[in-house]
């Protein structure tokens, strides 16, 4: 069971349509589609032709070239490919982060007061170029959501390095690279047991480096003018990397998810005077006026707090505290609304922002966009924040962000309005590479009034692209209590299912499995009709897959 699911996860990365079917032409035509060239515009019955990675023609009167691969996009929507305002897409996690020393412990033999600058997190010169991997899962995940370009930054601590623009397709990491050194990335991340180990250490260190870079700049200028009698300027890669920041030539993308961080960044910016982009914000509703007043560009996080889970009645405190619980519930839900309407609040204030997928789980992103829209963000604003706004902020509006002739062939094709539940991304074209996706089954809805006998042994299969996992699910229903165990054909181990609930003919349950020290919970949602079952299983951040199965033998 364990190994099988692990294998499933890995196999996701290896599979790609291109491996099987190398394209024979680099000209594509999407015909008869509803095209949204830019937020607020819409053309129906239109065709778009992409040749050698560029949009060659677009409109209702476009003739399809003979050598084009034609995609019949009847009743489909075509948007400009989305641009991720900031993330680590394509940058693998370093080994030690995965299974190195636990957080908060410093390596042996290091003077905690004067650690090597890599350990302290001071690597402002770093670029992602050497680390980029075109087949990283994060690249595939984002692409499947419709993202075709991303502003990516190195992983690290307080000063991880400089940002690059990548396209979310390519033959190699380097092949994805569009531009380097477009930004300086900074975050309030402390070092493990060495200076700077706290946020105050990080802020002091940043200020010191900044002022040293200013000094270096001054020194270099003076030395260039007349070196006579003067010590030569010290060479220091980290400081030299900060000189463009000090000169106002490079914007600082400062990670500031919470309101306190936003204020801290604003104060440092006031103090030192760098160009800042407030990045990954989640609580900016408190600071709309200040951001607006200071004209600070904003990148909004696509992560939202988890919606409350329906909790089963537990014994103990809850019932005794009805009034208190009501009050607390209200406060929690008011706060949730504030998170969900942050984007709308910024938009209403006229602040144009982009989105960042950093910290957001790919499987939540579309749902989170819908939650933001439900709380006042218009679809037009949402689309702008995924396309034109980040293009403007990153200086990319000549090449991407809208669908125009001559711009990059970056587009996303959906079988319905992207922002509506149930629509699917069917094609993504990034840098002229075409990716096709299956329509996902809508989560099994079931019929609350139907009834189902679920007892017995079921054979199931899970469809993962390129692979099918099979196994047995044994279910018992006694006095309304559902128990059972699930196993996989590749392993003799079984796992007890938990929290099984049957509503009408819809069965949901959890199967917690251990995975190399981590535990992952499989969430099953299945509709049962007679002796057949059909539904989905969510496997943590790996995604959601279709399940089907049938009963072996007779109902119990």
């Amino acid at each position: 069971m364990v190994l099988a699911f692990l294998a499933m996860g890995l196999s996701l990365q290896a599979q790609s349509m291109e491996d099987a079917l190398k394209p024979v032409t680099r000209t594509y035509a999407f015909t008869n589609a509803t095209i949204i060239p830019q937020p607020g515009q819409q053309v129906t019955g239109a065709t778009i032709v992409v040749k050698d990675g560029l949009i060659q023609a677009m409109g209702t009167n476009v003739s399809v070239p003979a050598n084009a691969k034609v995609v019949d996009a009847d009743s489909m929507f075509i948007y400009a490919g989305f641009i991720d305002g900031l993330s680590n897409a394509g940058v693998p996690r370093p080994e030690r982060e995965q299974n190195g020393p636990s957080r908060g412990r410093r390596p042996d033999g290091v003077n905690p007061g004067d650690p090597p600058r890599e350990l302290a997190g001071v690597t402002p010169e770093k670029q992602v170029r050497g680390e980029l991997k075109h087949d990283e899962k994060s690249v595939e995940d984002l692409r499947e959501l419709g993202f075709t370009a991303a502003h990516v930054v190195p992983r690290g601590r307080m000063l991880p390095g400089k940002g690059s623009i990548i396209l979310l397709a390519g033959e190699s990491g380097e092949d994805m690279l569009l531009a380097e050194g477009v930004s300086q990335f900074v975050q309030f991340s402390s070092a493990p047991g060495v200076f700077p180990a706290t946020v105050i250490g990080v802020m002091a260190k940043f200020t010191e480096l900044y002022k040293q870079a200013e000094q270096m700049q001054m020194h270099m200028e003076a030395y260039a003018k007349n070196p006579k009698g003067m010590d030569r300027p010290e060479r220091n890669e980290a400081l030299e990397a900060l000189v463009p920041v000090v000169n106002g030539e490079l914007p600082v993308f400062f990670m500031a998810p919470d309101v306190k961080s936003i204020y801290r960044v604003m104060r440092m910016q006031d103090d030192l005077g760098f160009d800042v982009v407030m990045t990954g914000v989640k609580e900016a509703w408190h600071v709309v006026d200040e951001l607006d007043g200071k004209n600070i560009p904003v990148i909004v996080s696509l992560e939202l707090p988890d919606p409350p889970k329906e909790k089963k009645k537990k014994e103990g405190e809850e019932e005794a505290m009805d009034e208190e619980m009501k009050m607390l519930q209200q406060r929690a839900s008011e706060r949730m609304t504030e998170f969900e309407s942050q984007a709308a609040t910024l938009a209403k204030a006229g602040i144009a922002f982009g989105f960042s997928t950093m910290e957001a789980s790919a499987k939540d992103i579309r749902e989170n966009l819908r939650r933001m829209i439900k709380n006042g963000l218009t679809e037009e604003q949402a689309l702008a924040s995924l396309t034109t706004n980040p293009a403007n902020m990153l200086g990319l509006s000549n090449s991407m962000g809208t669908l125009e002739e001559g711009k990059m062939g970056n587009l996303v094709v959906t079988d319905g309005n992207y922002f509506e539940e149930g629509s699917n991304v069917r094609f993504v074209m990034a840098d002229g590479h075409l990716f096709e996706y299956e329509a996902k089954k809508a989560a099994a809805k079931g019929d609350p009034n139907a009834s189902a006998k679920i007892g017995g042994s079921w054979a199931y299969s899970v469809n993962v692209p390129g692979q099918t996992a099979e196994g047995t699910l044994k279910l018992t229903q006694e006095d309304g209590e559902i128990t059972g165990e699930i196993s996989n054909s590749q392993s003799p181990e079984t796992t007890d299912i938990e929290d099984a609930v049957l509503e009408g003919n819809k069965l949901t349950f959890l199967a917690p499995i251990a995975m190399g020290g981590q535990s992952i919970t499989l969430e099953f949602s299945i509709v049962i009709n007679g002796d057949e079952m059909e539904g989905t299983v969510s496997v943590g951040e790996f995604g959601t897959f279709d399940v089907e199965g049938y009963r072996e033998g007779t109902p119990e």
Partner: protein
Amino acid sequence: MIRSIIALFGCLFLTVGLSAQVEKAQKGTFALTNATIVTVTNGTIEGGTLVIRDGQIAALGSNVTVPSDATTIDCTDHFIYPGMIDGGTTLGLSEVGSVSLTNDANELGEFTPHMQALTAVNPNSVAIPVTRVNGVTSVITVPTGGLFPGTAALINLVGYTPDQMYAGFQGVVMNFPNSGKRGWWDRRSEDEIKKAYEKNLKEINDIWAQVELFMKVKEGDDAPYRPEMEAMIPVMEGDAALMIDVDKAADIKAAIKWVKEREIPNPIFTGVAEGWRVAEELAEAGIPVITGPVLSTPTRPSDRYDRPYANAGMMHEAGVKVAIRTNEAENVRNLPFNAGFAATYGMGKEEALKAVTINPAQIFGVADKLGSLEVGKTANLFVSTGDPFEMKSDIVYLFIDGYQVPIDSRHIQLYEEFLDRSPGVRK
């Protein structure tokens, strides 16, 4: 001339005598006259006299004759109160907090009810005089750590051996599994906390089943040597209390259920920080509570700021028998102030005074000896210049177990030495 030399010698002797002689606790017959006597159980007597003889209160009232052999102490404008009892401390078990070798409260092991606080209590702890000069004359001193840390004992704060200090109550301590966080340093996830809680709950249940089994086999010839099991016998037979430390609302409810299911004869709940949330259930269960410290922060950030101050009063209001503790070692002297805060935030002066006198005495089954000023009770009492909860009041005389105890402690000695040091401030 000669007279002046004699006088000089006299002075010399006096000085020598003063510096050499340490004041000791003295037993005897004492008459405290012209006092306002706050009996706690029988009202307040103005202009009364209280006689101490053979370690007991021999007489008290407004028409008491002073015995001829009595040392008379004029208490005009002063008040006599029963000595206060702290229902939960580590006094005498912990000397210097951060120096582990001076800490005897926490033995290794989860199930160690045979660890006797009375064995390790240090009669000469510097903290004992510091405590008693504030009118605290008895405390429970409690082993800590693990599920069953040991057996707590009630002691009087006078005496040179544990036996001389012992005040007639022992209770087995149990830390009920905690399903909450233990402090800011507790970085466990919700899942880890839940797992630890369930593990601990299973452990206490397993232990209890073992104890019940031991009760059956203990009389047999082949009964094994199991001192930890032996230590539970008085609890099972109702001779000793089970002092269950529990704070979180859900845990309190679980503990009530647990106690009922096992028909524990003599349970006492201690801590009970969230007692106010489940006060009705506590009252209904009829389990007495020793709560505190009153001076502590709310258990949840959403709680009203004064909940810990009000907790004792809210439980009392619901009908729970409440005593107050400091849960302190060196600062048990703050007991009257803990009671004072409880009084101010809803409990009222009278009830708060009971919560540090007669209530703990009743809870510990020693109300025939301690907890109020009544004839025949042990002479544990103090004379103060006013309400002992008020910081402005001074404790001027102190009697414990019939001993007149000097108003002295290292804190006072340092004051006397350094207030006007030589060389002093250069003017």
